[in-house]
């Protein structure tokens, strides 16, 4: 990746993080931790990886994205807004009465959202259905879906994993946001889905490990994911929950809590400083 492009993506990712904090602060609720851990990935998908057109969000030949971990909607909305699907200003309406930005994604309300999600484990099945549909129709669309690591505790994920491999859905790329934290604690403490790569491999998937906060690593992972060898691909990316806001990093308490005014100011200050540093 060219240094200038990488710098641009880094700037965009900080703006996505600002959008997350803006939304969750104004909503006084939401899920900043996992949103921040997936911010770089969503930036990469929407600005680098996916064949999409904000002017034609329903275009049939577009790549699809399903946010299986639907609670990190603030990150998806921020990426969509910055990519031009709707005004960035709208992020302040997150979770408000009458907003088209619901607490969890709604494909009926939000431009650019390909599937309504929120109940964990279900998005990957819908993504598998999309990949099967593309395959049956002879299309070239790739279907991306983002799962949480805690989400892997849902049995349906493994029903879908078995199905996708059995049907040879090699245009399905599932990314696991492995930030190691879920509501009740670390994922090992709660009901460990580890070892994750081995599980997907055993289900017949290509497995790629990546660094969630390194664009070069994501670039390499997606290049390898598009090998279309008859198997679906899982990208297990190590991430830091709350990444980019110092006091939220690796803190389970920030899974589903909104910052107060002082915390909001500090978070925005930190993110502004990151932007400023990237401008130099």
């Amino acid at each position, binding site marked *: 990746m060219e240094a200038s492009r990488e710098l641009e993506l880094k700037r965009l990712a900080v703006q996505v993080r600002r959008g997350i904090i803006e939304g969750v602060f104004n909503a006084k609720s939401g899920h900043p931790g996992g949103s921040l851990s997936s911010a770089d990935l969503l930036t990469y998908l929407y600005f680098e990886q996916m064949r999409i057109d904000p002017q034609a969000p329903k275009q049939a030949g577009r790549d*699809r994205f399903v946010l299986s971990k639907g609670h990190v909607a603030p990150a998806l909305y921020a990426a969509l807004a910055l990519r031009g699907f709707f005004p960035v200003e709208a992020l302040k309406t997150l979770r408000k009465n009458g907003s088209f930005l619901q607490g969890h994604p709604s494909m009926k309300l939000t431009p650019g959202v390909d599937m309504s999600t*929120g109940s964990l484990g*279900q998005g990957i099945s*819908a993504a*598998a*259905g*999309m990949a*099967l549909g593309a395959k049956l*129709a002879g299309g070239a669309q790739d279907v991306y879906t983002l799962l949480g690591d805690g989400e892997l505790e849902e049995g349906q994920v493994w029903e879908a994993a078995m199905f996708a491999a*059995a049907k040879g859905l090699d245009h399905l790329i599932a990314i696991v946001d492995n930030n190691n934290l879920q509501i009740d604690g670390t994922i090992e403490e709660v009901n460990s889905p580890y070892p994750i790569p081995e599980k997907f491999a055993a289900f017949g998937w290509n497995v790629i490990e990546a660094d969630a906060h390194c664009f070069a690593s994501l670039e390499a992972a997606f290049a390898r994911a598009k090998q279309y060898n008859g198997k679906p691909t899982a990208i297990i990316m190590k991430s830091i929950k709350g990444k980019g806001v110092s006091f939220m990093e690796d803190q389970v308490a920030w899974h589903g809590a909104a910052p107060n005014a002082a915390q909001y100011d500090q978070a925005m200050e930190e993110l502004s400083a990151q932007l400023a540093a990237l401008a130099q």
Partner: protein
Amino acid sequence: MAELEIKKTATRDSYGRALVDLGAQNEKLLVLDADLAAATKTGMFKKAYPARFVDCGIAESNLMGVAAGLSTMGFTVFASSFAMFAAGRAFEQVRNTIGYPHLSVNIGATHAGISVGEDGASHQCCEDIALMRSIPGMTVINPADDREAYTAVFAAAKLDGPVYLRFGRLAVPHLFGEDYSIEIGKGVQLRAGKQVTIAATGLMVGEALAAAEALAAEGIDARVLNIHTIKPLDLGILTHAAAETGAIVTAEEHSIIGGLGSAVAEGLAGICPVPVLRVGVEDTFGASGPAVEMLKVYGLEAAHIVAKAKQAIAMKK
């Protein structure tokens, strides 16, 4: 009435036949099943169009998600399993991934009700209508016979939004001719009558007609309505019936909690309150036994409708 040899077909067979015929017209039709193709009769479609049949294996939750995803890619989708698993096990998947985004997924649920017979309570789903009609925007259809079931498949395929189609395992008498086609959301008056209305759905429609015949022999004039669509419910025809006959008996092969009887009572309570008595499975689980015997054991025969009709008439003011 002379006992004629009446032709009988299980509505699951009508479903399988309809899928094959629809498949010939609609090349975007995909049929999904969960390892029950031989029983749900989607196997007929699989044989005719193997490339458009997707077996999702014994994984109904994933089946519903896959169906949702396929529908967003421009396919006409029918997803099948037994009612117990389609509506029961996968309820939340149907609710969140099909119902909430209002996707045009057709759920072909077979083996509904007590008439599953020998398999017993674990497979006799008498709660599916209650579950499915609680989902906003879901259309719920329980065909009464072969022709109604066959045409319901074509009508559902044309409808925007999710449809739950409820089919049975037991062969039931043909009630309608080739000239009949279901109109979703529109009840059908099968017999005129002034003293009481029997509103029936599914295999109880045949029993309702037999009950009306028996009541007529006793000088009681009963109207019979076929309410094939439980949601959206045809409150027009029901309100007229309530106003004109003053009493309603509902009949369904489903729990008396949450099904047609509940829907009718809820609907009429605010418009035209009259006695509404429900014939159905009385808040209990089923049991193993031959289907026809089990219908008798669980009070799903004409005689039970007759008794409730008399009771309802007695309650009229």
